[in-house]
């Protein structure tokens, strides 16, 4: 991951069944290295990917409030769940890593 001055690189991982929304098989991980402007937010990166992947756009965001993530996908930024060290509108830094995993509860 390199910083060009004009942009930073953020790694985005879609793991297991969530990667179906970005063309994956529903197993393993699908990774993207996103070149984004310095100061880009978590929301901005997810919006960019949503624009390129309609299934993700349809699935990631809450159907009643498209500015919020739905309940069924966990967003993890640098190994911490969204809300711990980052919010949706937190700015990202070079080398930050966003992971999307299925929310999981129960037996």
């Amino acid at each position, binding site marked *: 991951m390199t910083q060009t001055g004009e942009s930073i690189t953020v790694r985005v991982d879609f793991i297991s069944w969530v990667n179906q929304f970005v063309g994956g098989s529903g197993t*393993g991980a699908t990774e993207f290295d996103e070149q984004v402007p310095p100061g880009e937010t978590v929301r901005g990166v997810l919006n960019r990917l949503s624009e390129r992947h309609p299934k993700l756009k349809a699935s990631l965001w809450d159907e009643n409030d498209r500015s919020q993530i739905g309940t069924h996908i966990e967003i*993890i930024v640098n190994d911490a769940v969204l809300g711990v060290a980052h919010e949706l509108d937190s700015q990202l830094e070079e080398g930050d890593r966003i992971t999307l995993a299925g*929310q999981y509860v129960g037996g």
Partner: protein
Amino acid sequence: MSEERIGGIAGKILRVDLTAGKIWNEELSPREWREYLGGVGIGAKILYEEVGADVDWDHPDNRLVMATGPLAGLPVWGTGGLTVVTRGAMTNGATSTQANGFFGANLKFSGYDAIVLQGEAPNWVYLFIHDDKVELRDATHLLGQDTWETQQALEEETGYNGHMLSVYTSGVAGENKVRFAAIHGDYGHVASKNGVGAVMGAKKVKAVAIVRGNQPLPVHDTKGLYQIADQIGYELRNDPTTKGLYQLGTLGGVRNLLKLGALPIKNYTTNLWPEDVSGEIWEGPALRDGMDHRGHQCSACGMHHCHQSVIAEGKHKGEIVDEPEYEGWAGCGWTIGCTDPQEVAWLNTQVDRACVDVNEFGWVIGWVMECYEKGLITKEQLGGIEAKWGDVEAANALLQMIVKREGFGDILAEGVKRAAEHVGGESLDFAVYTEKGASPRGHDHRGRWEEMLDTALSSTGTLESGMMLSPQELGLPLRINPFDPDQVSMLVAGMLGRRHFEDSLGACIFTTRTSIEQLCNVLNAATGWDYDLEEAMRFGRRTACLLRAFNIRCGIGPELEKPSKRYGSQPVDGPAKDLNVMDHWETMVASWYERVGFDRQSGKPKEELLQSLGLENVAKDMWG
């Protein structure tokens, strides 16, 4: 449909006095059916009204309520539901635990909504139900048989098999009153929490066998019911919130929970994936496709969830097993350090057949293995078993000792809390439990504070609020910071009651993952009622108050509402390593009490809350 009969309700509760050998039917008024629904609703009413404080879990006067609900037997996905309510053996308090399969459908088709077992049989019996033919039959020939063997024996004896006969038994573990014995039926469906199998064993009931009867089960609005059921099925298939569950059941849990620091690895000693273990073989599709498999669905269910598989390699190649749920992969695998899916799947079925709770099994064996590694429990104590991390054969040998209460197995059969108290010393620091005695579910709750709080505060012996479903419907935010004490408390308090509503319908919690409004729609189509969100949550809150009042009456109060030292410890590594739940525990608990309307000091539901829910009698009992 006749005017007298409520759609979806069979209309009879089957009462069995085992001491006297007496069997009779009980009917409720239309108002009572609406007020108590079925499942935990009916169960909580009976428990509160009939089981006194001095009636311990193994006392003959304890009640074992096996109830279904208004949707069971109808063409709605996953509606073979069983809810068991009793005073359970782990906490000696209220219990609500569920299984599916075909219990609920078969019971309803024989004309009953619930069974209440009371008293204690003089000799071992099984209860046979086929329409109006209800008999207590001798079960001495079934003693020593595991859950699958018991079902097979009764299939041969009665001449019914497949979905025509449901056999729910507590196996050998129940016979020996193992404190975490479960109730298992239909080859792989387990009501596992709080030692309900031990209660069944204490009553000398080996099994309940129900033939799919021939009683009519009319509904209020057949066309409407089909339409709503189809809509729910469509949502489960296509909605991104449920699609993964529809496709693979709970198989995705291992990989996802690892990312959250919530996969329990080696008895909470680490949260890191072992470098020598392939992640690919633990992906959901690989777990299923790694073995020959076929669907093993519950009544009327279209989910690709429950399966049976054939072990593909290793010592047990060719054996048929029930495909583990996520918690089986955790309790028989990651918690005890086994990372070979074939071995875990095999051990999981041995646990089902022996009939113990797979969560508590994991905490017991994980604790033994850690103590063995540290020299606190020896090979000699274990009868020659070398309890090394990940050794499923050793784990199975311990399982067999536990269910027969042989040697050290007699101590382990009491569950990890009591076993650790027996061994004492440093070993107490390693045991995962709640002070109430309830088993945590098969997650590392140090990465899921909401489930730890729910487990510790629950009145059911397991999670009571459960998962965050359609939170906006209840005025809750879509997402919370799972490590913010106030938000965690808001979530757990805000969801309280929804699970009780689901668990009273006779349906599976995996097929009720829709809005409460939609659940009310399908309930109303069946019954002709006009249930709405407010009435559903009022029902749920009332049930929660009854269960809590029962526990308070039994002396189970706020002083026990905390995790053990290991359960509430700070992870040493992994995604949650910098987070210590106990730093915020009192804040979360106090906030939860405030939000649910219970008194922090005594634990009682407040008088005004009870009165607002129509529980004036309980208010009087609690507050005078």
